[in-house]
């Protein structure tokens, strides 16, 4: 049975700029927004857009991601025909290869795509926070009778040179592609989300693979080749919330924006476009006598006895008496002991912050930065972790980092 469109989700990125957070897990598996992981966004977008077949291309530290995806049931992607499939590189009779680039990852899974005989393939990226209706993107692609479409965002001109830019005419037809140019001719940044006609994608993947000089990358190779051949290429304008959370500061910022949906535009309280996730199964959270909670997002299993301000707490976080958590992202299962002060930072899963320890600081003068504590770390009693610190090993009591 043929599918109209299936999705291929690039989730192999190491996310090295997230340092301690991605030492043991792939970037798409990084927790976000209180009870989600980054990959919940593209997956939920797929389901909400009517896409029921998704291939997830993994490579770097796939264990957590594999277990998290499981049979795809939390996203309603456990289907008889289709559903979600995790696709790591595998051995073939011709030998085995890691995914060499984004295009090569798709190339190595041509046989997977063929099983569904799709008309269109949408290529998604597993490191963005975005609520997007891919069915509207497909409608645009069909209306333009395009062979390739790319979702673009208008970015401020002064920042344009940081992005891959699409130069398009008044009919949105793409005439030129500039990768991080010094002199931008456009402010339409590629979101790295593409719709291809499957026959076209296949043709260009095979051609690209045959070229030993190629980096096998969509941005550097496939798109320029499409342009070279004068293919029908269009730019689809997206204007909703979109954030690449590839760095510690952008990840922290995006979490803080969740706290302020009225201004940031990222609304997780949208019953018409739910973001699905694998649930913790813990009891409702508790705000105990003496606690102070203001402007925060808190989820199941949390126990708050201290002060929590302008922060996001994931499942099962415990904040003991007298502890202060402010401007912080605290991931699941972390314990913040009494008297500890945790500010302006990201604390990963299952961390213990000792009594009276200090982690991070509000920006002041020349000291600013988002302190980061990696998963499973213990910060000893009375220890001090500075605002720029990146901690992935235990910190002894009283030690300063």
């Amino acid at each position, binding site marked *: 049975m043929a599918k109209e469109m299936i999705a291929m989700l690039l989730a192999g990125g190491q996310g090295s700029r997230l340092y301690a957070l991605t030492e043991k897990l792939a970037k798409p598996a990084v927790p976000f927004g209180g009870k989600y992981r980054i990959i919940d966004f593209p997956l939920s977008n797929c389901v909400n857009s009517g896409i029921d077949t998704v291939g997830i291309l993994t490579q770097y530290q796939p264990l957590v991601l594999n277990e998290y995806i499981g049979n795809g049931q939390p996203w309603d992607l456990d289907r008889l025909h289709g559903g979600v499939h995790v696709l790591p590189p595998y051995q073939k009779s011709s030998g085995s290869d890691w995914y060499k680039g984004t295009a090569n990852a798709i190339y190595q899974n041509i046989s997977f795509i063929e099983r569904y005989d799709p008309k269109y393939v949408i290529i998604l990226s597993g490191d963005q926070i975005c609520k997007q209706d891919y069915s509207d993107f497909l409608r645009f692609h069909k209306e333009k009778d395009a062979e390739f479409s790319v979702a673009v965002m208008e970015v401020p001109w002064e920042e344009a040179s940081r992005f891959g830019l699409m130069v398009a005419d008044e009919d949105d037809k793409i005439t030129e592609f500039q990768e991080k140019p010094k002199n931008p001719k456009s402010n339409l940044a590629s979101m790295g989300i593409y719709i291809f006609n499957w026959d076209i994608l296949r043709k260009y993947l095979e051609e690209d693979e045959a070229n030993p000089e190629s980096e096998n990358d969509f941005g550097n190779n496939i798109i320029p080749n499409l342009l070279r051949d004068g293919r029908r290429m269009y730019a689809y304008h997206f204007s909703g919330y979109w954030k690449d959370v590839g760095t510690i500061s952008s990840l922290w910022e995006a979490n803080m924006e969740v706290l302020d949906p009225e201004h940031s535009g990222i609304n997780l*309280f949208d019953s018409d476009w739910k973001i699905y*996730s694998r649930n913790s199964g813990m009891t*409702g959270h508790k*705000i*105990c006598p003496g606690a102070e*909670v203001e*402007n925060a*997002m808190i989820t*199941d299993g949390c126990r708050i006895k201290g002060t929590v301000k302008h922060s996001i707490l994931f499942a099962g976080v415990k904040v003991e008496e007298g502890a202060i958590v402010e401007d912080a992202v605290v991931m699941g299962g972390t314990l913040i002991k009494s008297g500890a002060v945790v500010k302006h930072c990201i604390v990963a899963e299952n961390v213990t912050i000792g009594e009276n320890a200090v982690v991070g600081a509000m920006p002041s003068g020349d000291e600013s930065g988002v302190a980061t504590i990696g998963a499973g770390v213990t910060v000893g009693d009375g220890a001090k972790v500075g605002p720029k610190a990146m901690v992935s090993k235990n910190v002894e009591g009283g030690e300063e980092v």
Partner: protein
Amino acid sequence: MMNANKSALGIIFPNSHDALVPELVNVRLMASIPFASRYRLIDFILSSMTNCGINNVSLMVRNNYHSLMDHLGSGREWDLVRKNGGLTIFPPFADKTNKPFVGRVGALAGILEFLQDQKEEYVVLADTNVVVNFDFKALIDAHISTGADVTMAYNEQEIPESVLETTSNDKGFYYTFALQDGRITKMYVNSKAKGIQNFAMGIMLIRRELLIDLVNTAYVRGEVYLERDVLLHQLDRLNVQGYKYDGYVARIFDMKSYFDENMKLLDDYNLDALFSEAPVYTKIRDDNPSRYIAGAKVENIMVADGCIIEGEVENSVLFRGVKIAKGAKVKNCVLMQGTVVEAGADVEYVIADKDVTVSAGKELKGTDTFPVYIGKKQKV
């Protein structure tokens, strides 16, 4: 580890004791009454069963069971989508001559053929008005080691004041025992005795073959209740053992106890006692985390996901998706899923059923002995 053929199957009676809380079962049944911010009563006994390897569970529903069907779906959240066994819901069977069943004997008589076809050696019977995180493995072990015909679980507690005061029997039956070396020698129906009693929990274990025999005979004689009409009269013939349960027990026997048992879970000690034994599963709603907006003032509350809190909340249990607007005051309340308390409203000692709205500026106050109940979807 247990041989799949040696284990027990579970039978739950979701409608039993409905009469105790008429308001709450107006639109549902005992088993689907919301409890502890994100659960329904049946989640506890059902999770206990699956956690103990009881993967063949039947529900003998009688009436008002749509909410329960909606909650359970295919049973996936309790890991009860199984090739062998899994979750079976038996709707009531009625024809010209038969009315829908009454009592456990009537219910079981309707599924005798099913019972005969099962492989499990034992049957666990349970109601849903007693909230426990129960270890059925220990019950089965005790049953085997004592060589009992029937084992009934009980805990030691007083019969509540309000139950002692009622004179009529129209709220159904409860049972207490006299024990000798663990064996039940006397069983009392609706006892008015004061002080600590051996109070039956509605959970019993029995060999499947014996259950079929007992039900067969009893049904022919027109008997209705397994304890009152069958076991009570055969205590000398059958070895009926009591199994003392020392874990946390929350009994729902009226509106007041429903309110109190929710409130008791605000104490960490009680919450841990009920939940730390084994996980309790429930239907997933995929709500976002709850949001506390600047200006919110909260203390001593238990809150599920999907809530938005801008006002003041104290000593309360909030279910999923509750909204407390700016300037609203909520104190000593149990607010079920989707309750909205609008700006400036002031509520105290209120049990709000699902999707209730308390309009702006309204004041509504019950007392600790008599919480005000607002029916489902009502606007105050």
